[in-house]
């Protein structure tokens, strides 16, 4: 796929002292875990995985189920990819990653179909489309393929949680305004006239636009925070996905 476009990373096995460096890890574990939640949030900051963020967030229940399924696939793939990272030849790494991801997604699909058939139907093709969610392949390529298992799983848990938080924000805003309910429970009584547009496609675009506006407003008010989230080459490369 993108072997020609980006310079291949050095083969992990080429570094003899890698194991030593792992034990003396310079990054404390909580950094790997927390960065995905806010500072490098895959959706809100890196703007990845926007298709599901917009498509399935017309209710909180759909958002939660989608978040859990993606979390499962991301953590499972990162675990396997980082475990076998020295054994996967560089030339076929993308193909192998996709194979691993597709396997987890198919399992997730079967599980959802068996456990929550109603929501599975509402999510439509977007469960299968987790395969092409750029967050997942992006994390394998940028992190799990080069880092030890422990760090990779922490990274995946953080990113998965960040994705879930973004979906929850979108789902809550859209369901509360668009249906007047939260998880199906009526909030404002029968006299509330729901803003139906919010659960329709345009509402998805508008809600995300307002969320991003709020975030850039917030960042502007906190220059220190903005400085911490300095743009990195990695983020730019991933955005393309």
């Amino acid at each position, binding site marked *: 796929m993108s072997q020609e476009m980006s310079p291949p990373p050095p083969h992990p096995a080429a570094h003899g002292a890698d194991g030593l460096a792992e034990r003396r890890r310079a990054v404390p574990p909580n950094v790997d875990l927390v960065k995905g939640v806010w500072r490098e949030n895959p959706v809100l900051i890196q703007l990845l995985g926007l298709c599901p963020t917009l498509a399935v967030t017309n209710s909180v229940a759909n958002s939660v189920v989608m978040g859990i399924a993606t979390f499962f696939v991301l953590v499972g793939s990162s675990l396997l990819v980082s475990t076998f990272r020295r054994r996967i030849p560089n030339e076929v790494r993308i193909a192998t990653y996709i194979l*691993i991801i597709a396997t987890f997604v198919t399992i997730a699909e079967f599980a959802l179909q068996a456990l929550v058939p109603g929501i599975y139907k509402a999510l439509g093709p977007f469960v299968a489309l987790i395969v092409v969610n750029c967050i997942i392949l992006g994390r394998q390529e940028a992190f799990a393929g080069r880092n030890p298992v422990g760090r990779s799983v922490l990274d995946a848990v953080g990113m998965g949680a960040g994705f879930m938080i973004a979906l929850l924000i979108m789902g809550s805003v859209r369901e509360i305004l668009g249906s007047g309910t939260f998880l199906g429970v009526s909030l404002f009584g029968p006299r509330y006239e729901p803003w139906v547009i919010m659960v329709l496609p345009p509402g998805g675009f508008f809600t995300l636009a307002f969320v991003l506006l709020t975030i850039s407003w917030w960042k502007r008010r906190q220059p220190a925070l903005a400085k911490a989230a300095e743009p990195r080459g990695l983020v730019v490369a991933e955005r393309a996905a």
Partner: protein
Amino acid sequence: MSDGGAIRATEQVPVPAPQPAEVRASRLLATLGVGGAVAGVLLVIAYGVTLPRIEANRARVLHLAINEVLKAPERYDTLYVVGKALLRKPPPGVDPKKLEQVYLGYGAGGRPVGFAIVAGAAGFQDVIRLIFGYDPKTHELLGMKVLESKETPGLGDKIEKDPAFVDQFRGVRVSLVGVKKGKRSSPREVEMITGATISSKAVIRIINDALERLGPLVDGYTQEGKG
């Protein structure tokens, strides 16, 4: 490797060549082959474990829908549409899942109460699929339930959520005619939803078209006294 998660399934992967610098094509193929094989095995297991549950879910949805539109029959038979006839058993060599099916419900004492028919066509936004119950003796509908639709929330989706609309399909005579709200004057007429005329008309058209196609078959089936 010092980290703990590495124990899992290590034996499934070929031992790496001592010199990773020169990667042979055979090793690339081996990696993908082993990966593919492991993936295949995992998927077959997952499929086997979940399939009974998935099929039970599907069957339950259909079962509930048939019960609803035939007013809770004692039992029902599945009939297969083959050419111009309804058959109790699919002809040999034909996959029953590929045949159109209708369901014949029986009331107390084995008396047939009517047929449940699944049909679908284009609605306002996308395809609408529904099931309805039909009594060939009285030419009346017994009930209607939307199985699948993407009609506009708050307007078009009233075809499945608004009892005032849905309940009209009990006891209405075919073929159906749609009229504006409050203008109902004959047993063939159905009042359409204000603001969702196209969705309402689509439902009426789907039922009329299905009965035009299948009506003669179910009428014939009852008259032969097989029911």
